[in-house]
């Protein structure tokens, strides 16, 4: 291999070499971090909510008439919803995973405990709540109809029974014996007993660090005259039922307005719209950077081939085969790219550290950079292949002709 003479020759054309090396370095640093961020976002977007998203929708009912009793209306509405064809389950709920708003509290194990053991979201549901969410009990039991309380905003949060998610149960009782244990949902309130554990039900807030910690409380809990309903349909009948529901509920009570009915799939799309936009932007940046780097290498190599035509002819005259000329340019590119990648590796981890320090991002996993290096080496070799092949075709006779 001609590594030493190639390096020696490159040292006499430092500017072009440094520019391309720098371009490779920046590309490595940005592409690795951008890919990592895309991967993180994708992972985030693919987290299951714990619900049956395909068959479920939700909507709000806002009462305005004189003497409007939200509890009377919600009972009538639930009775109507549950007898509609195609409805598998319906419940009131204060919130739904991914909608971005809801109740939260700190759970303690002792009544006077100053710091919460875990932060949890609260879902107020009735005995059909689990069924409406489509979540699955992994231990214990569902709420009984007689446990469902009518709560208003001023009431203390002290249910006798609660159901928690598996993640929250494990956090509260790492020994795995949460079922039947007592916890406090508010400071200085009577204890609530964990009567059931569901496999998963995410909080309404997607950015929460405790997104898997949710608690279901057996209660009807309207917000003033507003009530939110959650309906799960039989498979494949969601859209059909949504139309019926809007019409039937509007007809059943004229002193309220039915809010926009949204599927959970729509809710997911809206919840992750920013993540999707970020992924697209980063994807475009990655493609653009790779294209610019590849074009830069093609441009530089093409220029060097043109500039060195006579030199290539001289090498051919002195005995270089076409393969030797091809190898020369591939090796030269490999060396420049390698230099850039060494600097780029430092930049990539430095950039990741900066993101960690300033934006609490996760540190770039170690394997991103080596994989990125391999990809950029391959890109460099592919980019230089065209000009190198052109160089290999330079006939040795150019050495005796005027160029």
């Amino acid at each position: 291999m001609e590594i030493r003479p190639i390096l020696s020759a490159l040292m006499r054309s430092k500017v072009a070499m440094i520019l391309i090396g720098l371009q490779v370095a920046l590309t490595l640093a940005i592409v690795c971090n951008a890919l990592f961020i895309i991967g993180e976002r994708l992972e985030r977007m693919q987290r299951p909510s714990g619900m049956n998203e395909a068959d479920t929708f939700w909507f709000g009912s806002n009462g305005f008439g004189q003497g409007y009793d939200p509890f009377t209306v919600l009972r009538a509405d639930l009775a109507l919803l549950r007898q509609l064809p195609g409805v598998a389950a319906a419940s009131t709920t204060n919130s739904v995973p991914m909608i971005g708003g809801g109740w939260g509290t700190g759970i303690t194990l002792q009544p006077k405990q100053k710091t919460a053991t875990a932060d949890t979201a609260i879902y107020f549901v009735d005995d059909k709540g689990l069924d409406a969410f489509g979540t699955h009990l992994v231990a214990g039991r569902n709420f009984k109809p007689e446990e469902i309380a009518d709560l208003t905003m001023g009431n203390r949060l002290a249910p006798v029974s609660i159901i928690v998610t598996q993640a929250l149960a494990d956090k509260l009782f790492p020994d795995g014996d949460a079922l039947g244990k007592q916890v406090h949902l508010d400071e200085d309130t009577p204890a609530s007993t964990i009567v059931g554990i569901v496999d998963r039900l995410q909080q309404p807030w997607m950015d929460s660090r405790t997104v898997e910690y949710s608690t279901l409380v057996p209660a009807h809990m309207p917000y003033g005259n507003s009530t939110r309903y959650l309906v799960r349909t039989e498979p494949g009948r969601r859209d059909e039922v949504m139309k019926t529901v809007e019409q039937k509920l509007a007809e059943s009570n004229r002193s309220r307005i039915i809010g926009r009915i949204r599927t959970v799939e729509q809710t997911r799309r809206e919840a992750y719209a920013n993540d999707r936009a970020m992924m697209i932007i980063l994807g475009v940046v990655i493609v653009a950077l790779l294209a610019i780097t590849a074009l830069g290498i093609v441009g530089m190599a093409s220029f060097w081939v043109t500039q060195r035509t006579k030199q290539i002819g001289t090498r051919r005259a002195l005995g270089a085969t076409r393969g030797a000329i091809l190898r020369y340019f591939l090796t030269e590119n490999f060396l420049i790219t390698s230099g850039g990648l060494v600097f780029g590796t430092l930049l990539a981890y430095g950039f990741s550290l900066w993101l960690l320090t300033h934006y609490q991002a996760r540190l770039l996993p170690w394997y991103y950079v080596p994989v990125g290096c391999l990809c950029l080496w391959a890109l460099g070799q592919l980019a230089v292949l065209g000009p190198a092949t052109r160089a290999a075709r330079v006939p040795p006779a150019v050495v005796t002709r005027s160029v």
Partner: protein
Amino acid sequence: MLQMKHLSKVYRTHMVETHALRDFSIHVHDGEFVAVTGPSGSGKTTFLNIAGLLEEFSGGEYWLDGVDVRGMGDDARSRLRNEKIGFIFQSFNLIPDLNLFDNVDVPLRYRGFAAAERRKRIEEALARVGLASRMKHYPSELSGGQQQRAAIARALAGSPRLLLADEPTGNLDSLMARGVMELLEDINRQGTTIIMVTHDPELAARAQRNVHIIDGQVTDFDAEPRLRVPTRDDRAALAAV
């Protein structure tokens, strides 16, 4: 050493055919110093290119050191060129980004010599042309005469059987030209066959034989070697007698 029989070279484009060499025959023996002369466009460079395996020919035969080069593939020609032929060009064609050591090293690397063998040959070749102390210098740091001597060292390092020189003194002043010419004569005396293309009748006269080419054909060829014009060393030797 080199034998061409009824060799022809035709350049074809979709419009015209140009006969650069026609029925071209020449026989250069081992150890000869042959000067090739002729007007511009006569076919001198084409002859040199074909002789140096830089170009293929259209018809006829060409034997180089007993090897029939007809139909030889590009890689085989490159290897044969590297092994048998040394080139000296009018414009030196040293690689500007490499120092003299690395320049002389270029053909040796293609030959596949081990590093120690290459170093030995490079040092010997540069010492032979008087540039042993300039190994780390770049071509731009040398005079024209020194650059041509470096090019000669590069041509000699692989111990070629045939040295092809294309106007080797064309870019040099008379003093430097004389030095280069004397070096070539010295190399020839040590057994290397030299074919030199030149416009300079005075230089041509110093060769053992002259080949004159016009319109791609040999028009004047000294069939037998003649006495070389005495060099400065020869004159000194004669004076001593």
